[in-house]
């Protein structure tokens, strides 16, 4: 059986973190989000993967290549314009002549999730999950075990069962997709609601892992989930007097200086340098060549490749993009905040700073909870940041 992974979208709601990579390539637990789907498929015996790519597609191709390194056979279908999920799946028609799986590349899933789908792969199916925020997703209404319809972000919540965007489909759906497209419907939930009128679509509730990434703070939940399965690995140089508790991956070429305190789960990519007496607390991922200054504390955060946080800093519940440089004394503490993304405000219970790639912060910068600093901003020493800092801005 072939699987189609939807990986073409930009992910504009991810704030600064999709400036140079598509959403599915944002790292959580030091792997791109979509890698978890690829691995879950391969572990379940599905090796033929069609990757639907569009925005910044070269990042995906460079990473997965032909898929052999992951035990898969990956072919790519480029979609120049993304109209909707149904339109995307339609592009794969020439390669699909039998029943196939559809997975969303921007959700963290595991083997059990894919297994639940495969158990019902003899007929069309939708994988559903209970949610405590159903109004933010597509709510699935059922008759018995069969789907009646999918309502996106309903005003009136009739059920707490939501669509995970994982499906078993067969090629008979392509004609319907074309007809629905003529009426201006390009998304799979609309097409499926229409299909349900004539075809039995089974709703399968999954007990597997499914964490959807839609907003930057979701990345912290994905990261925490991903780190639950990491390996205990010790590579690089760990100086005398370093304390390590719990499961911690230390990549090749890392240098961890004396007095550092590491509490797992943590993942340190290759080439990281952890300064003397630094404290790393769960659940934190550091990418490649990340540098943490002495006496700095990092809690429940993602620091992507080449980020550099100077001495005596505090970073909590934060996401720092690749190449963010903060000199000494960065204060990015955590708390409840209303965060503005794409002009909409979202109440977030626990959030620190969201800093885009290659932003540079001087000494003693203080960042209020929920601040979004877009990519390549320059912030002078002593500044206090709140709200949203535009891309490339210079802040005095």
């Amino acid at each position, binding site marked *: 059986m072939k699987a189609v992974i939807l990986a073409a979208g930009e992910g504009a709601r991810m704030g600064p973190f999709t400036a140079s990579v598509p959403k599915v390539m944002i790292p959580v637990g030091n792997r791109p989000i979509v890698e978890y789907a690829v691995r879950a498929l391969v572990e379940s015996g599905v090796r033929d993967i069609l990757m639907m790519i569009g925005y910044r597609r070269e990042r995906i191709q460079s990473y997965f290549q032909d898929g052999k390194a992951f035990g898969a056979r*990956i072919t790519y279908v480029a979609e120049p314009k993304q109209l909707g999920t149904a339109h995307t799946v339609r592009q794969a028609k020439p390669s699909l002549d039998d029943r196939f799986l559809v997975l969303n590349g921007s959700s963290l899933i595991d083997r059990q999730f894919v297994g639940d789908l495969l158990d019902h792969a003899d007929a069309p199916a939708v994988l559903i999950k209970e949610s405590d925020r159903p109004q933010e997703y597509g709510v699935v209404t059922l008759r018995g075990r069969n789907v009646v319809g999918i309502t996106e972000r309903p005003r009136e919540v009739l059920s707490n069962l939501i669509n995970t965007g994982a499906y078993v489909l067969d090629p008979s759906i392509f004609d319907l997709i074309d007809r629905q497209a003529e009426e201006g419907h390009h998304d799979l939930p609309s097409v499926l609601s229409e299909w349900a009128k004539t075809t039995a679509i089974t709703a399968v509730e999954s007990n597997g892992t499914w964490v959807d990434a839609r907003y930057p703070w979701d990345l912290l939940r994905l990261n925490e989930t991903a780190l639950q399965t990491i390996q205990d690995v010790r590579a690089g140089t760990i100086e005398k007097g370093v304390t390590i508790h719990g499961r911690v991956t230390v990549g090749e*070429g890392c240098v961890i200086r004396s007095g550092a305190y590491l509490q797992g789960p943590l993942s340190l990519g290759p080439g990281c340098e952890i300064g003397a007496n630094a404290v790393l607390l769960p659940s934190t991922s550091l990418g490649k060549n990340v540098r943490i200054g002495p006496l700095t504390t990092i809690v429940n955060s993602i620091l992507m490749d080449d980020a550099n946080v100077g001495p005596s800093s505090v970073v909590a519940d934060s996401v720092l993009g690749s*190449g963010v440089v903060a000199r000494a004394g960065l204060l990015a503490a955590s708390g409840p905040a209303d965060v503005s993304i794409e002009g909409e405000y979202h109440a977030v219970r626990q959030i620190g700073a969201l800093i885009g790639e290659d932003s540079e912060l001087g000494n003693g910068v203080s960042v209020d909870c929920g601040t979004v600093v877009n990519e390549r901003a320059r912030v002078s020493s002593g500044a206090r940041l709140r709200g949203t800092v535009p891309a490339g801005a210079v802040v005095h």
Partner: protein
Amino acid sequence: MCGIIGYSGQRNALPILLDGLKRLEYRGYDSAGVAIVGSGLQVAKDKGFIANLEGQLPAMQGTTGLAHTRWATHGAPSKVNAHPHTDCTGKIALAHNGIIENFASLREKLESEGHVFKTETDTESLVHLIESFYRGDLEDAVRKALHEVRGSYAIAVVHADEPEKVVGARNESPLVIGLAPDENFLASDVAGLLKYTDKVLYVMDKEMVVLTPERAVIKDLEGNVIHREPERITWTLEDAEKGGFEHFMIKEIHETPKAIHETLLGRLANLEVNGFLAENFTSVKLVACGTSYHAALVGKYIFEEIAHIPASAELASEYRYTQGAAERPLVILISQSGETADTLGATREAKRRGCKTLGICNVIGSSLSREADKTIYTRAGVEIGVAATKTFVAQLIVLYLIALRMGLDRGTLGYEEADRLKDELRSLPRAVLAVLNKEAEIQSLAATYGTDARDAYYLGRHVNYPVAMEGALKLKEISYIHAEAYAAGELKHGPLALITKDTPVIAIAVDDPTYEKMRSNIGEVNARGARILGVGTDGDKELPKFVDDLITVPRMSWIFSPVPVSVALMLFAYHVARLRGCSIDKPRNLAKSVTVE
């Protein structure tokens, strides 16, 4: 250069040899051939790509054989000049990579003894020489022949009367043995045998090997057995496939950020580069060929700026034949493959002059890594496209690292300054990403500038002058447009006369110490009506007034600007060649690494 593959085992040799040849095709591809020992010796060869040969092969049965892919040095590419070559009896077949220097005198002597030559190649003299020594023992005949030969070689030889046996030998051309149960392999490059085994034995200079299905025995040219432990290869053939990209070249350009990361890994924190930390050099000499030479030229600026040590760059093919100065510089030799013949020659020459040698190469276990006193590897991964891309950038990264280390050791670079430079090195993968994200824009510029151009001029100054040279080389190599690079200060000394409204000019004017001067040079070119593509810095508001089109790279210290600028020029050259329908991964007349002088 050429590629050789040999097989002795239980299976039908032909498919294995052809598959191996395809893996080696990047080493040269103007002709190819195979020889199989089954019921007698059968040879088939033709000019052109291996696919040509494969299409018209007779059925060849046998479990021993050798094959060859050739890049002509002596004799035109043709069917008759293709390897393998055979002797007068038609019983011995030989494939050879390298050059037999005394082939003319050997040929004269052999012809006077009655041998009949069929080709114009240097190699044929060797096969007749082996024939003249053959008394029923191929190994002995090859050994005696090699004693009379001067030059470089990696060879594989079979004899119709000695089935199951392949004799190989090496001097200054690469040769590696692959070991598997009940079958053994011989190849110019690990890529040729990786599909069948990851257990290899490297053959060294002036050594022979006798290959049978059961064993591979290495001996010196006196016949003494040499014991050597096999090594395991950890990279896989997967590394060598295209993964959804149209060409290897564009795939490899997109791998540049990864190549930078890998090359920096674990080397930044303590700057542990395998250099000569304790030595006190008064100067640095960088020696290389082709693209690596351009990296060396950039290296001159890197060493002078970061380590404040006098540095100069020289072509390996020139350095070898010039007089050394009285002082003894650290000689840094740069070669992607580590097999470039002139660079290896220069290494020996540098050592002869009493200099310490430091190699920079991308291939572990390459000849350069064995010849140079110390080696620092670029970790760019396999590069298949003939035009060097990511490996050029990785070479620059290693040069930055060495210069940083030297600056700190010499006390010419402060710790804070070093930290700042390290931060910038860390930011380079994303500076390159920013350029890669402009690919669509560069592609449309390639259509504007490259579709009809017959000539193109690249202008640069200071550290970006060699980058302009590299940009021009890329364009020449793959799009066949005549391209030249000039130091912009030299414009008025000649090249300005060549510039008309029909000659596109690519001018690098990033934020470096010569920016103002460069801008006025662009003005001079502008006055001649040429269409100008500028490469500038993000946010530069002045430059757009002087150029017709502009590609920008992120702002950074000028010493690092060659990294993003060179990537922009690679993308430009790639898209020009692609639009012109050129054979990008295998340009005509060029080979990936040049193992002949």
